[in-house]
């Protein structure tokens, strides 16, 4: 197996050729934060939290979608990266309606955890309090747009793993929102198999089971990676 070696935060690491920078930073235990990325799904580099500095590049590079290359010198936690990450998380909180106290995902929310990770205790940007809706038309699940951060994990898991492509993105800019089917109520979308993968991978409380109430959501975001390895390598985690 071909291997590339690179330096992350002063530590030399070796990863298989073709691995992403994110995998390399994990090998160095660098704890690069991610929100939109999920192992097993194709990266989209939209949350910009995994941006890292690579010496010789005048741009910050998203670790999730950049290939690790021989001899790279990577810095993952410089002061400006920390500041940008905090600002990005502030922007996430300010653009939606994130009220942890009444959220199904409270204490199991990746956005909430991210705020702690990047040291964000309040947003310096004014909250936008957008008017968003809740789609409770599905018999088993609910979509609360107020809590959606548009990571598109649900879109990707439904398209890439389940193969149903129920979800997509509608509109643009600040008006962007997840749409079911042809922008229909979720419950009317016949393509939906009710598999629940979207609920498992949702990092916040935007997608949840109707049986969950405040702080009861227990998602399993490792699902896509398990299914991917089961399919690609015929390896099941209980073997």
């Amino acid at each position, binding site marked *: 197996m071909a291997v590339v070696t690179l330096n992350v935060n002063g530590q030399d690491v070796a990863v298989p050729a073709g691995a992403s920078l994110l995998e390399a930073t994990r090998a160095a235990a660098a704890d690069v934060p991610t929100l939109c990325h999920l192992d097993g799904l194709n*990266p*989209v*580099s*939209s*949350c*910009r939290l995994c*941006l890292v500095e690579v010496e010789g590049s005048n*741009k*910050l590079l*998203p670790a999730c*979608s*950049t290939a690790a290359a021989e001899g790279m010198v990577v810095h993952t936690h410089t002061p*400006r990266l920390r*500041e*940008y990450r905090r*600002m*990005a998380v502030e*922007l*996430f909180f*300010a*653009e939606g309606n994130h009220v942890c106290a009444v959220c199904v995902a409270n204490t199991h929310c990746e956005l909430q955890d991210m705020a702690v990770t990047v040291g964000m205790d309040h947003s*310096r*940007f*004014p909250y*936008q309090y957008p008017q968003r809706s809740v789609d409770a038309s599905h018999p088993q699940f609910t979509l609360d747009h107020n809590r959606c*951060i*548009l990571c598109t994990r649900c879109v990707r898991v439904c398209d890439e793993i389940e193969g149903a492509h129920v979800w*997509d*993105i509608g*509109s*643009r*800019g*600040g*008006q*962007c929102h997840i749409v079911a089917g042809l922008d229909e109520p979720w419950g009317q979308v016949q393509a939906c198999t009710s598999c629940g993968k979207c609920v498992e991978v949702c990092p916040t409380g935007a997608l949840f089971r109707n049986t969950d109430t405040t702080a009861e959501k227990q998602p399993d975001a490792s699902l896509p990676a398990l299914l991917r390895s089961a399919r690609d390598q015929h390896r099941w985690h209980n073997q």
Partner: protein
Amino acid sequence: MPSPVQVRCCDASGCRSAGSQALRTALEGARDAAGLDPSQLTIKPVGCLRQCGSGPLVACDRPGRTQLFGGLAPEQAGALIAEATADATAVPASMADGLAAHRIDLEGPFFALQRPVVLEGCGQVNPESIDDAIAFGTYAQLQRVLQELSPEQVRDEVRRSGLRGRGGAGYPTGLKWDTVALQPPGPRYVVCNADEGDPGAFMDRSVLESDPHRLIEGMAIAAYAVGAERGFVYVRAEYPLAIERLRLALQQARSRHLLGNHIHGTSFNLRLEVRVGAGAYVCGEETALLLSIQGQRGMPQPRPPFPAQSGLWGAPTLINNVETFTAVPAILREGGDWYAAMGTEHSKGTKVFALSGAVVNTGLVEVPMGTPLRTVVEVIGGGVPDGSPIKAVQTGGPSGGCIPAERLDTPVDYESLVELGSMMGSGGMVVMGQSTSMPEVARHFMGFSVNESCGKCIPCRAGTVQLAQLLDRFVERRASPEDMERLDALCQMVKVTSLCGLGQSAPNPVLSTLRWFRHEYEAACREPADALATGRVR
């Protein structure tokens, strides 16, 4: 044989909106009334005659003399026909006087300082007639290239010309062509980006409306050079006339076997199609554009892989701007060295600008790279109509910035503009007079970016919204010094962390006005009451 006397009527969008079609009908009526037939006096619709602000434009060609008239009313058609056909002495004095007021001096700086290369056929050929285009020399280079040159020789010529992408980023065209050509064997595509969305930019539209065959020739040469057999022109839906003419031109080219299989009896095949955008500015970003062509939602993708490696349907794809492709036939005709002799060390050739705003001569301007900005806006453009000094020049639309009057002597090339915090962009140039408020300009462009953000990445989707709200505070004179810091910090964050070029350049209008006109922002927060009372900024 063209008749000795020819009247060329501009029939591009700008002059159409100024009534050029009624004028042309009146001219044809006047010709018939004068008892002349088309063989004695040709009246032909042509593309852009460049000084768009004075439209409708009409050019009169007689042997040894060409005159240009602007803003003629249909009632003056008779006088123009008389002027065009008779001896100067035969025209009644009153009529001649009436026309004289509409004469535009072709020896004046607006035309004399220009160097038409891309625009050489604009205003000369009838954009709806392939015969006219061929008579003007279009497609001759395609034939020569196919019959005499290898793809390597074509690429070598383009590389020698030093041509850089005219869409704004300025990537070396020859290098891009080589990258596509050197990919492993397999299908590849050529794509023309005609999704010109910057406010104040109308260069590509004018080329499409005025000389579509030259673009097709340029694309065909490019396709031959990189080994593509299929291509697309992605035009924004807001350019209906351009789409109509391009489609007609493609149809004509196909019927003459200048597109299709075995072009000029060689083994070279090319299929070109038009794809029409659906109103998203972001689809001018190349990766979003390619997705849109494939029928998907136009959202930028992380690069690498670059389209030259993996573009349309995963195949190597050459994507260039309208102006870039259109410059190619002239480069091959005159040679790369001829093109490289124009311009500056790092920015070769000529560039088309769309000049508008507070300026006397609004229109299309093609000048050698490196021409000082002052020459473009003050000499060619004629400066602010009321004679007051220029305050700033905005280049590059919502991705560019404002260049202050004291920097007008900067040569126009890629590097110099970036150094000033602006960018070449596609070529829109908006001149601003003294009464323009810079925070308002910044807010205007930020509003544009808010509306046009695709919403994929957080800095652009939410950051531009916050920036627009911060700018509201300055425009409404209720900002605090902390807002200034927040503005600075957020601009940096959006610029550095956004996914695509749109987000990365969205803060440029703010950053450049903060850099050159910081006092206007300070005035909005330091003594707001005083500023409100006096109505003055400083």
